[in-house]
């Protein structure tokens, strides 16, 4: 029931916006077609403007990941995290999450398939994925689009949010699903 409601809501959200905004606009005397084209023109330049920022970030992340340096970080963090009660299987996901959206989605899918979606690991992986976001991607794209090169403290704040999301997911899942 609840599953169905969520699925329906997520299916309807975008079509609803696409319907409501132009209709309301028309009745409020906006030249909807011209306004759309006007706004869309910016889209092209914005996408081009973020390209160098994305290249810089994705090259560094890719080298870090493919070279195996990420795995070393995961391995060295495991003993300490196991002491804290963190299941070792979800550590790679936690490290990948802020760096790469597709990478972490792949890792989570793998965890769900090997451990089963209704296992503790599966639930923790799902919760981590659902309650955090790809911090470095957001940082790169949002600040890149307006030419911000000094993000000040926001990197630390974003990573702190990821850490809370990660540890919180493990704690809440262990409390909720016993």
């Amino acid at each position: 029931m609840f599953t169905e409601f969520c699925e329906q809501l997520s299916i309807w959200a975008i079509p609803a916006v696409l319907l409501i905004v132009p209709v309301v606009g028309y009745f409020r005397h906006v030249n909807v077609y011209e306004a759309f084209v006007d706004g869309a023109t910016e889209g092209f330049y914005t996408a081009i403007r973020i390209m160098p920022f994305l290249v810089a970030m994705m090259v560094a992340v890719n080298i870090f990941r493919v070279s195996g340096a990420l795995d070393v970080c995961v391995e060295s963090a495991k003993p300490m995290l196991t002491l804290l009660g963190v299941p070792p299987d979800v550590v790679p996901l936690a490290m990948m999450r802020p760096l790469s959206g597709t990478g972490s989605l792949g890792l989570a899918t793998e965890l769900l398939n090997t451990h089963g979606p209704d296992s503790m690991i599966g639930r923790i992986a799902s919760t981590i994925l659902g309650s955090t976001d790809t911090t470095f991607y957001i940082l790169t794209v949002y600040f890149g689009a307006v030419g911000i090169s000094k993000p000040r403290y926001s990197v630390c704040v974003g990573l702190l949010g990821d850490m809370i999301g990660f540890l919180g997911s493990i704690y809440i899942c262990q409390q909720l699903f016993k």
Partner: protein
Amino acid sequence: MINLIWLLLLVAGIVYAGVQGRIDVVTQSAISGAEGAVALSLKLIGVMCLWLGIMKIAELAGILRFFARLISPLICFLFPSVPKNHPAMGAIIMTLSANMLGMGNAVTPLGIKAMQALQQLNAKKDTASDAMCTLLALCTAGFTLIPATIIAIRSAAGSVNPAEIVGATLTVSFMATVTVIVADRICRIIYHVRIRR
């Protein structure tokens, strides 16, 4: 900070690959990373045009202003440096709502739009303003009411109840959101004290 992280990722990756005798993967992964980034930005052009077009209509129709007025007390508390009737308010609200509804690809263009509006208010164009940091913190904490993607992959993996984690994700992302808001405020105060000295 970001310079250091970027350098660290790069150096750690290259040195480790060299030590392992697999230096050839560095070239490959650098090139595939660069190509992937360009492919991603090209893919973003379509979505970007679509949502910025819709946003323009919403802006001209006064829908953004309507939403801004609706929940302005909360947003004013979070973004004290943004004037009440500034278009940035509406853009911020659209970004956060799209985030909450789990609208995936639609969030990025809206977030960029909000950042552009905030950039107009920014005195130092290469440095993130207070409001930008707050918006970024909220977006990275990713408060989502319906994590549609996760529900989909759980159901694809054969879960008995794919949406059962919604309670957990809500609790955790609420916790993370509160933490980043508090951390953002604390960092802001420290930063301003340091600047004044």
